[in-house]
């Protein structure tokens, strides 16, 4: 059974997709349980896979039994073993939390929504587990198209935002495909490891460099690296919380995974860091992304859009950390993939719960929330502290490695950008907390205010949020385990 886990992790949500779409016609109340079951199987498979990887240092699965480079190979190592678990956990927690959002936003399209959700997660799993460059594109498109549809399904301006997202995303994916095409042209292979074997002979050629740049450009667009980010705040503002809870934490992080995978496995560090000296330029781009994202977030008055710009800054963290090229930087980037996915999930769950109760996510709607929604706000506070980078939440530890990498590389601008954005995040979140906490009309020594009634969000939104918030602390305290037993092996050994 354990040998089949790489396939199982994809097959479960794929079959789930078909079952959900059928169930959607029969009785829409079956859709969510099927989804949760499928995601539960995937979670089990992903944990099993990571355990297997820790034991055996890698798992390989030949799809259909055919050998690469003709057949498609699924390969799980330390890097994608970790990302697989992240996807499974985030998708599952959000699935539990999103029911009421779905019923509120698209009560007549429950079946299609959950079908798309399941297909989206299938695509993400596939992107992460595959070792074939073209197969990655196929699954990338599956995930992206489901994502576009989920965003576009909403009301109001959502279809327009979804269309914009579709255009931009397709351009990005096409760039990636073009890059893969160039690689296929000169190497004759689509298998990542195979390409990595053939490519060193032609590192100096224009084709290799072009392929790399075009791939990266496409990925930067898909991951919303500044200045190619403009589709994201729009898409995220108009998408529904049900969709955002799974799209926001995962899409961009999986794209960053792909960037790491292409750089480390296909093109190898000796090309990417030593020969093709683009890393410093990308770090500067990341620095600008961090500063721009944080500052743009300051000017927002709606929670969703503010969070979208915070994500833009966080993307900068990960891209910059990776392209620093040293052990701490890459460790920080990979750790931040995990931590940021969890933080973003919690933050969007909290925002969703607030928006559900307050019928909107404008800042003015958040008055007095600490009294009326104490549990939601507690989860929100923990998530905010993680984004700011306060120990013992996980956000602090990935920041630690990123700053450490910056100092070790002498890239003090990166360090400065990280510290600046932390301070800006303090302002961002405490602005919201101030609205939720202060009552300017109150006099001194109120003498027992009339206590507002607690009007919390539904339990199935609050509990996943609190579980997520707890996980943020658990992840933080277990950073040592994560880095020492998993991430350390994901970073190439020859890096200092």
């Amino acid at each position, binding site marked *: 059974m354990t040998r089949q886990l790489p396939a199982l992790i994809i097959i479960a949500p794929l079959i789930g997709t078909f079952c959900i779409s059928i169930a959607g016609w029969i009785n829409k109340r079956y859709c969510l349980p099927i989804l949760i079951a499928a995601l539960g199987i995937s979670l089990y498979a992903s944990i099993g896979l990571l355990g297997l990887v820790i034991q055996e240092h890698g798992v390989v699965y030949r799809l259909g039994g055919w050998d690469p480079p003709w057949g498609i190979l699924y390969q799980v190592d330390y890097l994608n073993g970790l990302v697989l678990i992240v996807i499974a956990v985030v998708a599952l927690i959000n699935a539990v939390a999103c029911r009421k959002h779905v019923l509120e936003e698209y009560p007549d399209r429950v079946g299609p929504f959950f079908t798309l959700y399941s297909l989206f997660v299938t695509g993400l799993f596939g992107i992460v587990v595959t070792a074939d460059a073209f197969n990655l594109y196929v699954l990338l498109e599956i995930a992206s198209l489901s994502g576009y549809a989920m965003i576009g399904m909403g009301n109001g301006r959502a279809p327009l935002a979804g269309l914009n997202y579709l255009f931009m995303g397709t351009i990005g994916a096409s760039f990636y495909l073009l890059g893969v095409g160039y690689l296929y042209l000169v190497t004759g292979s689509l298998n990542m490891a195979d390409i990595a074997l053939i490519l060193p002979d032609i590192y100096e050629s224009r084709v290799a460099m072009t392929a790399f740049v075009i791939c990266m450009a496409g990925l930067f667009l898909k991951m919303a690296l500044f200045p190619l980010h403009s589709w994201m705040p729009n898409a995220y503002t108009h998408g529904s919380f049900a969709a955002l809870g799974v799209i926001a934490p995962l899409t961009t992080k999986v794209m960053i995974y792909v960037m790491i995978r292409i750089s480390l496995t296909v093109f190898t560090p000796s090309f990417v860091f030593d020969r093709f000296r683009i890393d410093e330029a990308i770090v500067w781009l990341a620095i600008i992304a961090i500063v721009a994202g944080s500052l743009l977030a300051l000017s927002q008055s709606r929670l969703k859009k503010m969070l979208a710009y915070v994500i833009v800054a966080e993307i900068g963290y990960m891209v910059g950390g990776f392209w620093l090229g040293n052990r701490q930087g890459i460790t920080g980037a990979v750790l931040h993939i995990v931590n940021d996915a969890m933080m973003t999930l919690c933050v969007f769950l909290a925002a969703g719960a607030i928006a559900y109760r307050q019928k909107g996510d404008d800042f003015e709607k958040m008055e007095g929330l600490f009294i009326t929604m104490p549990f939601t706000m507690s989860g929100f506070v923990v998530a905010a*502290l993680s984004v*700011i*980078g*306060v*120990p*013992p939440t996980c956000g602090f*530890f990935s920041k*630690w490695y990123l*700053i*450490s990498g910056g*100092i*070790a590389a002498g890239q003090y601008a990166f*360090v400065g950008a990280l*510290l600046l954005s*932390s*301070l800006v995040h*303090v302002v961002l979140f*405490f602005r919201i907390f*101030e609205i939720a*906490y*202060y*009552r*300017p009309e*109150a*006099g*001194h*020594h*109120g*003498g*027992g*205010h009339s206590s507002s009634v607690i009007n919390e969000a539904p339990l199935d939104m609050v509990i996943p949020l609190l579980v997520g918030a707890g996980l943020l602390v658990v992840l*933080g*305290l*277990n*950073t*040592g385990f994560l*880095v*020492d037993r998993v991430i350390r092996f994901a970073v190439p050994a020859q890096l200092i």
Partner: protein
Amino acid sequence: METIVSIKPFLAVLVSIAAVPVLLSSRSANIREGWTFVAAAAKFAIVASMLPSVLDGAEFVYTVAEVIPGAALGFRVDAMGILFALVSSFLWIVTSAYSIGYMRGLNEHSQTRYYCYFALSLSAAVGVAFAANLLTLYLFYEMLSFATYPLVTHHQDREAQSSGRKYLLYIVGTSIGLLLPAMLICYDLTGTLEFSNRGLLAGKVSKELAGLLLLMFLFGFAKAAVMPLHAWLPAAMVAPTPVSALLHAVAVVKVGVFSIVRIFTGIFGMETLSSFDLGSYVLFFASATILLGSFIALSQDGLKRLLAFSTIAQLSYVILGVGLLSTKGMIGGVIHIAMHAFGKITLFFCAGAIFIATGKKNISEMAGIGRRMPITMTAFFIAALSIIGMPPCGGFLSKWYLVLGAVEAHRSPVLLVLLFSSLLNAAYFMPIVYRAFFCRPEANPFGNEIREAPVFCVVPLVITAIISVILLFYPQPFFRLASLAAAQMTGM
């Protein structure tokens, strides 16, 4: 030196965190307050149970999680740590009693939230006291910043909002902007963050970098209110008085100076500081803060603001003591943590009692109050003597050792600073006491019958005032702990 592996330090931190769910679910206010006392007593008991071994020279260690290679989340209880933890946890018991009188006397809102965050703040303070390395210290330092925010901004009005912003700006801004990079630079240089008696950076850092790091740490710990990053403290006086008393006279600000002392001794080490002559910079900033703080206090009319500026000045005595880089100076500085705590908390308790009993906040309105509240004002007088540094109060002992330390280190300007600042302290305290007691009975706006604040307020301030006196004649265990700490840190 014996090392005992024991979960006690961790328990001491946890006990008040564990109390929070209990407090939240308490059915009545009395049960809730009862649980606060239970938690405070338990915390003090655990800390006190470690005292005998520490006095014998042992250390308690406990590692919670190996989060970063070379910097685990862990605890180490040594002489200086347990001194601070004893002071904080004992005074929490006293302050909880005072809080009952104060919060109920004013019928304050959100009392459960108040007690919960108080518990969390004390956890963080004890966590800082027992931190084994800089990472753990940073964790609890940040926890303290965020746990005290709802306490400072308790009244939730416009004034609280702007004070809260100032609080965050100064304290979180410096901890993320200065302290975090300084910590990471140390980690980059040495690969670890453990406090070592010789100083972590010994031999690994150049003079310029050491100077830069020193400044980053000195101002990164803005809770120590070294000028010019002191403005948050007067702003924080908008908090209810028990908060000002315990947190801003004892826990929060002492966490700041305690951390600085830890950094000087455990990260830099006495040798490095003296060989690079960095002590002079420290003495400069500390002396400037002492003198300026005392001068500004002279001009204040609001009693709590005056006490805030007095605190700013007094905190730098601790830093001054360590900056002298001599054994006696260190003893004086460390023991001042205890002496000032008892003195200042008494003064704040008195300020709060005056507010409850008469509604007065300004000194100009307090003429003749001594006849109405003799017990309170006598306690105020005793505590003021301690802060000024006069016998028969404990503050005399710490000032005496600071003077001895200045002589030992051949720093005569510091002697002048000590003398002059004591005169300034007298100059702003004595008039308050004089006018409170000696004004004509006919002109007394308060009338002449005695009407003190509620019992729950008066008893704690009497207790702390009496302790301030006792501490001069019997300064144990603080004196022995301070001597042990100084011996460990200076390697003698």
